[in-house]
């Protein structure tokens, strides 16, 4: 318990250090564009592949469970859409991004720490936390929602491909994904994604920033970043769902 409180304290102290004005706007914008590439553009491939197959599997499983002639066929499209928007895209994708982006952030900052590059920044008079972590958090907050929207779209295409062998027509699948659409679900999905983006970038940066030791500790920090980000994501998933949907 004491250790948890210590971590929490250090985490909020770090956040306080992170959220201050960058020394130079042009340098910050340059850093931000690099992070957009690393966090966003470089993740499009994996997001596309995972979303497509998740969408396909969800529609096949839904069709398998809705075999009764009493259920209308369009329900497969409807259930695929709801599953993707409410849970699979925001939560599962963010858990995967915690592994890809989070571990990358922790190991990058961690190796800078152990090779004294962060100390060198501090000696120059640069706020290392703002310089290194703020662009990552801002890029994540701005790009993760775009990735999740893309993921939903690709997932729905995957769902359509998946249901081709289940006897459902394209028309009823399309009817299913349009019927009874509640726009608030997209808002809910984006709210969750924004929270998760913040958790992934800040928690991973925290573990990287406080790495102490050598290459082995960088690996440990990277693993911890993924584990803790995932646990916190799942906790917030429950809390936000309870707050927004219950």
């Amino acid at each position, binding site marked *: 318990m004491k250790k948890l409180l210590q971590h929490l304290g250090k985490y909020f102290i770090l956040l306080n250090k992170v959220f201050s004005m960058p020394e130079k706007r042009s340098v910050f914008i340059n850093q931000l564009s690099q992070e957009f590439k690393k966090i966003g553009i470089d993740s499009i491939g994996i997001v596309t592949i995972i979303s497509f197959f998740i969408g396909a599997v969800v529609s096949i499983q839904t069709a398998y469970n809705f075999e009764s002639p009493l259920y209308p066929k369009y329900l497969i499209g409807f259930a695929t859409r709801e599953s993707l928007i409410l849970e699979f895209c925001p939560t599962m994708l963010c858990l995967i991004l915690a592994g890809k982006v989070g571990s990358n952030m922790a190991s990058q900052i961690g190796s800078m720490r152990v090779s004294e590059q962060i100390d*060198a920044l501090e000696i120059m008079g640069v*706020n290392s936390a703002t310089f290194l972590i703020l662009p990552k958090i801002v890029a994540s907050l701005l790009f993760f929602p775009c990735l999740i929207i893309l993921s939903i779209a690709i997932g729905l295409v995957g769902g359509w491909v998946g249901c081709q062998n289940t006897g459902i027509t394209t028309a009823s699948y399309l009817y299913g994904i349009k019927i009874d659409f509640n726009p608030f679900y997209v808002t809910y999905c984006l709210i969750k994604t924004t929270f998760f983006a913040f958790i992934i970038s800040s928690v991973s940066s925290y573990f990287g920033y406080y790495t102490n030791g050598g290459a082995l500790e960088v690996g440990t920090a990277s693993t911890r970043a993924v584990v803790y980000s995932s646990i916190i994501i799942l906790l917030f998933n429950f809390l936000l769902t309870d707050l927004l949907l219950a």
Partner: protein
Amino acid sequence: MIEIKEISKSFSENLVLDNVSHLFERGKTNLIIGESGSGKTTLLRSLIGLNEIDSGQVLFDGRDFHNLNIKEKRKLRQEIGMLFQKGALYDYMTVEENILFPLTMFTEQENEEKIYRVNECLKRVNLINSNKLFPSELSGGMTKRVSIARAIVMNPKYLLCDEPNSGLDPKTAIIIDNLIQEITIESNITTIVNTHDMNSVMEIGERIAYLFKGKLSWQGTKEELMNTENKELNDFVFASKLFKRLKK
């Protein structure tokens, strides 16, 4: 000049620096020597706030570093150049970008002016035409020289060097030592070099402070060092057969 007054620092129960006081003079190469684990690196890091001290004062020309607020500390740090043990070059930047970085962060100079200054510093450390190399493409000596170039690019008032020639061959080590001493004299800055290399001590040591188990055990010049009666210092300095023979 940098003056430290009764500095103490401990990690958990372990007292690493015990009431250390010393004056590092301007325009001179001030050396801190001592065995591994004697507290040299902790002292150097404590001077600039990379380690928080438990008690004492660090005065940079009268300004008490640990009493300054965060903004004032950052401002003061812009007057300090530091050469780290492993160079601490940003590995995703080229040599030129590494040296350019402090100028980009803290000056409003035109790009041509900045590049001119970078080339000036690279020339000073005898590394012309290596602007576009990445740190991974540099040898140990080159890394140290780029690191020195980065440390002096903002014309610092204070230059701190943590074991500048560790891992270097004796010839390159002497080149680095002499470079540090020349820059100190040319720019009339306060230089502190942390080392356990006796060749460095003999080459550039003007004012020497000897740390033993976290305490300042001796201070003086290299001439005085050769005739010291301090037992621990004698054991440290004349540990090698070569130096024993030299003393005889």
